[in-house]
């Protein structure tokens, strides 16, 4: 549905996006993740036909955004980083104007405006001026605007920015509902958002794609080893060496100590489950096993490891080669 090939965008000598390629299938939600200034907005602006790429191409709904911009734009709904509202227009007037320029047939305009206001829960501010709305409402009017012509592709640049927690949940639910009928790309720098809403993630840093995968695969792939957290009340005895003797354990680190109770991070080889052996080792010595749980590498850690200079996980692709 969306295909980006070797996309490069330069602003003068500055390269904002460099050789980015990815695909999004019909009905999929793709998360576009990256720190500020990574090139998310630039990529989205190319996809929406706001600016042409310096190199490479982007195909949206079967139309090259540069060769056949009008056809591609007719099938795309776009929520920019700042919702593009005219402060002096009322919400209803604004949406009616947008429906006209997006080519919604005259007879359908009214019903489409009403239904997209329903969906984004802004019907109560329909007659307020856009300039007088709170950030949360502006964001939702922006979303209503993107949905208005029922586009096949939705490109949402930080759709939940500025919303309160309740609105964030509502918006995520709305986005999930929209998937299936629509193909969605959403950018964010909030990680839970990606794991909750997206089927696939593109992590971008300094203009380059550093990883493309499902959130689950990313989590497991990037874990080179399994890590358990074990909290032991060893009554002064040396639990560390005892844990080290368990078969399969590669490393034990004392993580915290509180009143004779010590927490250890126990690493083992990838795919090995050493929980039973660990429990047995502790209990057989007559110590108290207070806690035993796997430590997962969160998306946050993955993200950090991918986007910082030293990448701790060996399976992570080299994060840093942003020179031309």
């Amino acid at each position, binding site marked *: 549905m969306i295909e980006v090939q070797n996309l490069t965008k330069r*602003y003068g000598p500055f390269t904002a996006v460099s050789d980015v390629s990815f695909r999004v299938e019909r009905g999929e939600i793709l998360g576009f993740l990256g720190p500020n200034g990574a090139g998310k907005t630039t990529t989205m602006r190319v996809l929406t036909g706001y*600016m042409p790429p310096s190199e490479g191409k982007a195909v949206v709904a079967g139309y090259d955004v540069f060769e056949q911009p009008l056809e591609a734009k007719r099938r*795309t709904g*776009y929520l920019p980083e*700042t*919702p*593009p509202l005219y*402060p*002096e*227009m009322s919400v209803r007037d604004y949406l009616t104007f947008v429906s006209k320029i997006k080519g919604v047939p005259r007879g359908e305009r009214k019903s489409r405006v009403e239904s997209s206001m329903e969906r984004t829960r802004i019907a109560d501010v329909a007659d307020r001026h856009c300039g007088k709305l709170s950030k949360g409402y502006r964001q939702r009017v922006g979303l209503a605007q993107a949905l208005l012509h029922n586009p096949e592709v939705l490109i949402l640049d930080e759709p939940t920015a500025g919303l309160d927690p309740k609105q964030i949940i509502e918006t995520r639910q709305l986005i999930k509902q929209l998937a299936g009928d629509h193909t969605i790309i959403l950018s964010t720098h909030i990680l839970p958002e990606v794991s909750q809403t997206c089927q696939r993630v593109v992590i971008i840093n300094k203009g380059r794609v550093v990883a493309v995968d499902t959130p689950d695969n990313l989590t497991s792939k990037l874990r080179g080893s399994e890590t358990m957290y074990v909290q032991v009340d060893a009554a002064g005895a040396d639990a560390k060496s005892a844990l080290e003797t368990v078969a399969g354990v590669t490393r034990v680190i004392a993580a915290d100590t509180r009143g004779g109770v010590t927490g250890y991070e126990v690493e083992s080889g990838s795919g090995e489950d050493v929980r039973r052996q660990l429990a047995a080792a502790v209990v057989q010595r007559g110590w108290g096993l207070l806690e035993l749980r796997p430590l997962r590498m969160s998306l946050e850690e993955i993200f950090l490891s991918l986007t910082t200079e030293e990448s701790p996980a060996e399976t992570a692709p080299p994060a840093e080669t942003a020179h031309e």
Partner: protein
Amino acid sequence: MSNILAIAHKELKSYFASPIAYVVIGFAAILFGWFFINLLYYFDRMSLQAGGGFGGPETVNVNEMLISPLFLNVSVILLFTLPLVTMRTYSEEKRSGTIELLLTAPLTDVQIVVGKFLGALVLYAAMMGVTVVHIGFLFAFGNPEWQPVLTGYLGLLLMGGCFLSLGLFVSSLTRNQIIAGMITFAVFLMFWVINWIATFTGPTTQAVLNYLSITEHLNDFARGVIDTKHLVYYVSFIAFSLFLTVRAVDSERWRG
């Protein structure tokens, strides 16, 4: 076409939603009224002195002595008011980010530019509409010819179109309204005074400078003559400015 009208309608609405339309129309009405009174007094005196050998003219003609100079004076009003109309057209959209909506909607650059131009032109027509009242008084209490009045208005509309298209172009170059306004004003002024040095130059330069001056071409319209020469000048001026605006918007996309 419906896209163009949608943009024009939106532009017009935003003029009237902000104080700009009222300030511009009000300011123009006051100045026009002032010019009108002055010329009316002058005409009044001339008619008293006419024909009697008191140093006055042989005959008086309300078209030649009142309406035509009045129309020519309008260029002064336009010089000051039209930069206020056009300075925000593109600058404001760029600053607030709404340009992203227009450029990602299924619209061509030409549709956007022409739509904005038409919106501004309708506001300008409303501004000139006020002056119909003054001219109406002349028809109520005198008997001017109506044809030169019509051609005069046609000339004013075309001249205003030149100023507006030029202002639109300047506005497309910057995201700062004040800068857009100041540069537009300076460029208008330049086109207004460009032929002032014409009398000190050779015949060729003189002809070129006179031809370039926007206001010079109004003379014949105000006198009741529709000369293709002037029509071509105005229409091609507008078309060229709008073309430049389209190119400026397009080049902005490339530069990002």
